[in-house]
């Protein structure tokens, strides 16, 4: 069995080597396809900090590298655009985690979380499509098979912002308090400015097909705020009202794997088969 596997690998590798005849820096226009994850370097929700991810979604999200392409106008230098689309988890799924966090703040030994008959207004179940568009400059370092493309990019991402609330009933009491976080933006999806630094690396399977992995750090900036209110429902008295800043900058780690397809080679490689 081992012999069969080793022989098969040798056949595949030798086949690949037959195709990989181009020298380095052959591609001029290439497109990427891939699947990736995006996660904050410093987790927000788990640390009990407020962010849109607490209010709306989980920290880590899987996305599709939907449209991504590079154009090399010099041997080592090119431009790259990326459009990534993701499907964050349904915000309702975060409700339990949010309530647990609030309960922890007010004291599990003092309060219960109770059902809110007016659940719908603040716990909208609408999911949204996350998207980011980035454009930047890419530098090439290539061998015959392996390559590494460092790059820097800038662009915008969408941020899903959801209002959140919880009703807490005090133990041994008729008192109920309402804790709410209401966003200061009209839309439930807004945008953030991003800066990205990272690199792609991979192996050329053929002259036109590469296996690719992409790693980057993406800094997101936004100016979203939430109004936090604590109201004693029993007597309609506002106990606390404050403005909470969305973390102005969140550093995300971005990784994806996929393939690169070379659509057009540089002039000196076009006649090579």
């Amino acid at each position, binding site marked *: 069995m081992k012999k069969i596997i080793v022989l098969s690998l040798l056949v595949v590798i030798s086949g690949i080597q037959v195709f990989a005849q181009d020298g380095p820096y052959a591609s001029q226009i290439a497109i990427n396809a891939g699947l990736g994850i995006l996660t904050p370097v410093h987790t927000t929700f788990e640390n009990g900090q407020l962010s849109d991810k607490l209010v709306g979604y989980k920290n880590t999200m899987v996305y599709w590298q939907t449209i991504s392409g590079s154009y090399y106008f010099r041997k080592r230098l090119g431009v790259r655009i990326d459009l990534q689309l993701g499907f964050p988890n349904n915000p309702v799924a975060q409700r339990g985690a949010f309530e647990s966090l609030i309960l922890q703040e007010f004291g599990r030994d003092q309060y219960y979380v*109770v059902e809110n*008959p007016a659940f719908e207004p603040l716990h909208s179940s609408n999911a949204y499509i996350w998207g980011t568009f980035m454009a930047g400059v890419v530098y090439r370092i290539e061998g015959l098979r392996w390559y590494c493309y460092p790059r820097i990019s800038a662009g915008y991402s969408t941020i899903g912002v959801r209002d959140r609330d919880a009703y807490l009933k005090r133990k*041994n*009491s*008729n008192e109920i308090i309402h804790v709410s976080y209401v966003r200061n933006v009209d839309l439930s999806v807004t945008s953030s400015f991003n800066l990205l630094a990272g690199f792609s690396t991979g192996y050329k399977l053929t002259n036109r097909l590469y296996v690719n992995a992409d790693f980057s750090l993406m800094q997101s900036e936004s100016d979203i705020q939430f109004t936090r209110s604590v109201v004693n429902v029993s007597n309609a008295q506002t106990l606390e009202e404050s403005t909470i800043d969305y973390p102005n900058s969140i550093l995300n780690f971005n990784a994806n794997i996929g393939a690169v397809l070379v659509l057009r080679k540089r002039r000196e490689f076009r006649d090579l088969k």
Partner: protein
Amino acid sequence: MLIRRALMTLAVFYLLGGAASCWVDYEGVIPCDPLKYTHKDFEVYNLDNRGAEAIVTHETVVNKHAFGIRLVMDRDEIVSSRFKNIFPIFSTPLYASDCIPNGYVAQDSISSIKIFTIADFDDEHAAGSDVSEYFSISSTSTFSVLSEYVNMHGSDHLYIDQLDGKLDMLLMTPPTDSGAHQFTVEITLSDERVIEQTTNAIDLLE
């Protein structure tokens, strides 16, 4: 032939029923003769609200900060003459009316709900005093004093499964002194009937 006659007879009934349901008043609105309910009686229970939700208690002691009274309403439905049809399937109106589908309207709405203490409650409320202001009706997201609640919901439209509804009236201002307490709940209806019930005696302790 027999089948044809039977079908013809059914068709005549259907058309007559349809014609009756097509009756439109001069404003172009189909008159509504809705289903109605009437308040018959109610029961009262002591509530223990120490936990996540209020439960009926038959204990003799409860925390005075977590005490309440549950009203369980006993309402009867009054079937409209319009729906007393020997062939019920022919009574379905062919046109929409302004009646609430499957809804019941109050024949006798609630005019007031009052709570009287049987024992001395505090310095300002001796035995026999009205202590309604100390109770609120809770629905988690809102607390309404009894008069507000009656203004808002005293003549609510109800569905059949809501006829025997319950109201939880929570004691928001407990008595200054701990001890045995008992309350009489008095409901006045729009037809001037007054129904009252008294809770079991219970010790309200700190």
